[in-house]
């Protein structure tokens, strides 16, 4: 292990020691460390390998913009690839491993790619894997995919949970540096509801990394004082470890709070992360700025980092990233690093300043008009070669090099609504444009105000403006004293003249040569440049490299940088785990369930349930000895037809429709007429869409002069209710109609079969003889004095009723029906038996209500009344929909009784080839009918109503079936309807 690189000072807790490992080797750090700072303190600079060339890499930055120091954090199911060591908070027992290297980080076989770099220039894939064409899918793509990516997933299920939540505030302040803190103080002191969110675990932003003073005290201390004051303000919420990832519509911001990432594992019940949706009336982007490098030959070695980051490691984390440090800068800020390191006793071997003029730093070798032209060091920087203003070159021994090419305001979130940032020549950077998200303004370095005073002042100004917008009067307060140095920068994007590679985007191994090649091949648009070279892609989204690449392309094309433009910024600002987006919606918690009133009883019987939307419905109930579902379903069907069966139909949508215009309203939404329905009767109804296609069907009963209850299919319960509300509120607001869903309120059971009446007579208090309660009667009854409803309707073709009681009594009712039904050998049947019986009876259901079929297709054309206007009536009469040769619902049975049918089979004439031109239609629903002793089906057949009795083939090429069938009436069972009227 190398010697410690700790120096004095810093914001780490040296009284406590944290043990962690990297690539299996043990190290120690302190609370307050990141993984990167702790590794640097232990003398570890090599932390990763680059994506394409497998070049050795160390951290470039000290923050979330990091492109290089990507590691796998933790092990087992919690292992997370591509984690930035620069923001990974150290905790005791942390395990990190390097990625994208084999067999080891120091000796990576894939580094051979670096030797072959000539062949791996931009567009390599596009040019190389062109032929033979058949190889692309089977050979090239799998091979490239295997080589792609950095870290690896374990494929184990994530053991952690993730929360979602909602927050509301007057002002969201994004970033807790000097501008953000001052904005939050200004708004918080005025009583506004403020949320201050910062991605760091310690608020203060750059103040934690600088030696600036504010108001006569160290900037970090001022920040800590500001945070302490904010914590006392009742309307302010402080959210550290929280990254605002995007601006969405209507003042909504997404934010990820890393609740437990700084712990070995989340405490019981606690989430790992929470995705907050923040509703903010105003927002201030105070996200600071990101330093950018200068491109020069071999500028990617471990030990070469951004000058501001080198300074941050020294000032905040008390780490000297090297024992001999050099600085390469084109601006004044770079000099601060030299000064700070020098003050901390670090050997600053030289400052290579691209600017020709200006005062020299005292006590430090400060070379004006100079540049770095090359570096050396296989696994870490050992020396740099510089060219002085007079042209003389010199090699200096150095283990760390800080590079500063200027600072890019973090404009990302201000551009999330496609607002283009604008170029600020004074700081040679883009600043937020004016067409950003409404209600969002920028302050501090994010707005291009790069001095501490500028940050404090703009933070206060923007907060006052937001308060004024919100109608809160507040005055500017005197600002604490702070440095206000002007920006002194000279354009220096890359060092020209070298033959080697100079990196722009180290994560994607994009070099100056790649940009030149893109230009040479006419990929000069920024969008083309990005996709041709991969500049700005992957986890860092080009935070350090984008502007550099644009500037170089601008130079090549002779355009200005603003003319060259930028690519579009999109959320998220930093990578977000998929689990965070999913929240609790996974596994059995993917969606809520809806349980029927008979669910508990059915569970006791060992019922098999099926998901129908959110409902869990009984599919069938096996009895001892039954080994196949068909045995159960056949038994349930036969028992129902023989005596009586009971089925929970609570899931059908029920909509209460009242008002003096309720009947007229139903006439308009149904294709058939309901205003003439007598009180105490029900009727089957067909509902069309505007385009004449069938939307839904069901039975509607008239319970009073102005009171109806509509039944919908289970699947369309919500859609029909929404449709009716639209009709009521938007189409016909003048009608006196009130709607409300009562689906949940009533437990409803179908009682069907020859003994249905006899069974119900034991349950209900009223006379329900055929004379008293005839077919299609409906009304209020009582069950043991309890209010209830009875409908005489049938979906099975049997004598059948639906009985409803308030849902709390549903469990008792199913138990009583079963108990009383023992006399009749009653059976409780599920959705499978229900399906069999409806196909036997020729009733349409979901498979036939497929969103493409008309009433005429279903054989229900006569239900569309032409005597009144209704939704879909006119368009259902279009020529193409009235085609006599169009699809018609038919019944299908195999010619051979043991012939097999498969749903989805297509009708073909006997002897016809199985091609589209010969397609006659398809089988929509297939069941085995125990009553008929064979497979039967419903289907749509062209001119089917004229082909009854013909023989055809039902062909399913996917299932490999080809069955000779007879086209029959869809009414397989009791076509005259004698049983249901019995």
């Amino acid at each position, binding site marked *: 292990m190398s010697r410690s690189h700790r120096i004095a000072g810093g914001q780490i807790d040296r009284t406590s020691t944290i043990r962690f490992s990297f690539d299996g080797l043990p190290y120690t750090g302190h609370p307050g460390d990141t993984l990167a700072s702790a590794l640097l303190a232990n003398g570890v600079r090599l932390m990763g390998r680059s994506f394409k060339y497998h070049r050795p890499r160390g951290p470039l930055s000290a923050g979330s913009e990091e492109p290089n120091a990507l590691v796998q954090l933790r092990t087992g199911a919690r292992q997370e690839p591509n984690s930035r060591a620069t923001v990974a908070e150290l905790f005791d027992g942390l395990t990190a491993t390097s990625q994208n290297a084999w067999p080891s980080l120091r000796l990576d076989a894939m580094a051979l790619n670096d030797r072959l770099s000539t062949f791996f220039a931009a567009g390599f894939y596009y040019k190389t894997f062109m032929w033979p064409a058949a190889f692309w899918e089977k050979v090239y793509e799998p091979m490239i995919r295997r080589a792609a990516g950095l870290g690896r997933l374990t494929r184990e299920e994530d053991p952690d949970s993730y*929360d979602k*939540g*909602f*927050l509301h505030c007057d002002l969201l302040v994004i970033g807790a540096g000097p501008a953000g803190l001052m904005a939050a103080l200004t708004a918080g002191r005025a009583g506004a*509801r403020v949320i201050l969110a910062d991605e760091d675990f310690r608020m203060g932003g750059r103040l934690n990394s600088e030696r600036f003073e504010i108001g006569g005290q160290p900037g970090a201390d001022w920040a800590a004082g500001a945070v302490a004051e904010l914590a006392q303000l009742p309307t302010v919420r402080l959210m550290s470890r929280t990254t605002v990832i995007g601006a969405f519509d209507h003042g909504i911001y997404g934010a990820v709070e890393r609740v437990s990432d700084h712990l070995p594992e989340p405490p*019981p*019940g*606690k989430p790992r992360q*929470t995705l907050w*949706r923040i*509703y903010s009336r105003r927002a201030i982007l105070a996200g600071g700025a990101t330093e950018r490098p200068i491109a020069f030959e071999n500028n990617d070695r471990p030990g070469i980092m951004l000058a501001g980051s080198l300074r941050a490691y020294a000032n905040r984390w008390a780490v000297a990233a090297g024992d001999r440090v050099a600085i390469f800068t084109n601006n004044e800020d770079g000099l601060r690093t030299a000064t700070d390191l020098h003050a901390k006793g670090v050997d600053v071997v030289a400052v290579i300043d691209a600017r020709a003029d200006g005062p020299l730093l005292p006590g430090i070798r400060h070379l004006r008009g100079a540049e770095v032209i090359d570096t050396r060091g296989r696994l870490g920087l050992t020396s740099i070669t510089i060219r002085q203003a007079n042209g003389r070159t010199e090699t200096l021994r150095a283990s760390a090099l800080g590079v500063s090419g200027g600072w890019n305001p973090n404009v990302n979130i201000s551009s999330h609504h496609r607002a283009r940032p604008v170029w600020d020549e004074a700081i040679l950077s883009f600043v937020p444009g004016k067409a950003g998200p409404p209600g969002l303004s920028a302050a501090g370095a994010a707005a291009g105000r790069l001095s501490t005073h500028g940050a404090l002042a703009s933070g206060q100004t923007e907060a006052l403006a937001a308060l004024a917008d919100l109608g809160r009067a507040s005055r500017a307060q005197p600002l604490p004293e702070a440095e206000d140095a002007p920006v002194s920068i000279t354009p220096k994007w890359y060092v020209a003249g070298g033959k080697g590679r100079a990196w722009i985007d180290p994560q994607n191994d994009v070099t100056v040569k790649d940009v030149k090649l893109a230009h040479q091949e006419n990929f000069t648009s920024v969008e083309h440049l990005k996709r041709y070279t991969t500049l700005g892609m992957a986890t860092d989204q080009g935070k350090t490299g984008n502007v550099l690449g644009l500037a170089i392309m601008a130079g090549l094309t002779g355009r200005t940088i603003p003319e060259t433009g930028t690519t579009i910024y999109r959320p998220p600002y930093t990578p977000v785990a998929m689990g965070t987006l999913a929240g*609790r*919606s996974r596994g059995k*918690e993917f*969606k*809520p*369930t*809806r*349980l*029927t009133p008979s*669910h*508990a009883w059915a569970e006791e019987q060992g019922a098999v349930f099926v998901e129908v939307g*959110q*409902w869990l419905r009984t599919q069938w109930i096996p009895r001892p000895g039954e080994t196949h579902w068909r045995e159960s379903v056949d038994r349930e069907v036969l028992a129902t037809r023989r005596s009586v069966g009971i089925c929970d139909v609570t899931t059908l949508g029920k909509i*209460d429709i*009242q*008002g*003096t*215009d309720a009947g007229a309203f139903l006439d308009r939404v149904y294709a058939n007429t309901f205003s003439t329905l007598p009180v105490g009767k029900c009727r089957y109804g067909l509902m069309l869409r505007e385009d004449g296609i069938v939307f839904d069907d069901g039975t509607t009963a008239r319970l009073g002069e*102005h*009171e109806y209850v509509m039944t919908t299919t289970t699947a369309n319960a919500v859609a029909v209710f929404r449709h009716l509300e639209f009709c009521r509120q938007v189409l016909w607001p*003048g009608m*006196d109609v*009130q709607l*409300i*869903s*009562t689906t*949940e*309120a*009533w*437990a409803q059971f179908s009682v069907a079969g020859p003994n249905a009446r006899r069974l119900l007579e*034991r*349950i*209900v*208090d009223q006379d329900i003889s055929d004379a008293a309660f005839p077919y299609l009667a409906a009304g209020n009854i*009582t*069950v*043991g*004095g*309890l*209010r209830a409803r009875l409908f005489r309707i049938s979906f099975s073709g049997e004598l059948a009723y639906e009985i409803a*009681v*308030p*849902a*709390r*009594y549903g*469990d*008792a*009712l199913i138990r*009583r029906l079963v108990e009383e039904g023992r006399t009749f050998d009653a059976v409780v049947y599920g959705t499978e038996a229900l399906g069999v019986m409806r196909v036997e009876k020729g009733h349409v259901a979901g498979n036939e209500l497929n969103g493409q079929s008309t009433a005429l297709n279903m054989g229900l054309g006569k239900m569309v009344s032409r005597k009144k206007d209704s939704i879909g009536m006119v368009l259902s009469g279009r020529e193409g929909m009235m085609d006599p040769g169009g699809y018609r619902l038919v019944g299908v049975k195999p010619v051979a009784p043991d012939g097999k049918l498969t749903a989805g089979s297509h009708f073909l004439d006997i002897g016809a080839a199985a091609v589209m031109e010969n397609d006659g239609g398809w089988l929509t629903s297939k069941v085995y009918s125990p009553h008929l002793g064979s497979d039967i089906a419903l289907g749509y057949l062209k001119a089917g109503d004229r082909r009854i009795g013909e023989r055809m083939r039902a062909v399913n090429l996917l299932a490999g079936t080809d069955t000779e069938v007879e086209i029959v009436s869809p009414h397989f069972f009791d076509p005259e309807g004698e049983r249901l009227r019995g």
Partner: protein
Amino acid sequence: MADRLNALTSLGHSDPVTREIGPYRIVERFDIALASIACRRGRDKDFSKAAKGMVPLPDPAGSTQGAPYSSFWVAPDMWFVEAPFATNEDIAEELKRLFGDSASVTEQTDGWARFDLFAPDLAPLLERLCNVDFPHVEDGFASRTLVEHIGCYLIRRRQGEVTLYGPRSSAKSLLHAIETAAASVL
């Protein structure tokens, strides 16, 4: 006449449950009768006259407590009326008699599961459950909202007390969501 049927709570028990998670107390309520009333078109005066002194008609996003009837606003010209189940089980019939043909009345008692939440500060729990700005709204606030994809009504009785009505069939899922969020806050 047949025997009367026994009732079960929305969670499938004979008696309502109470859960305690840290500072949070979740109380299932099974003793409330519920009905919707909607003013029929053009009958505002008759509707208001019938309601006067009997059924409060709070403004949008509001609720009002009363005896025996309390109510909360659910949609334009529509309210849900609450009353003790023991004395007002047939609440819909009562309200039909009261309002006559000036209102459309529908029984809603068993359409909903009700959970009352108690804690000194409910905001950390509710901000994980729904998009209601709980600390900001006043006592009596009532709103439709979503809890883990479940459509609910939320009523702020006071700072430390909230009523959540969710669909009866999803009672178990709703309680699970509340319990999970409560554990997450601790």
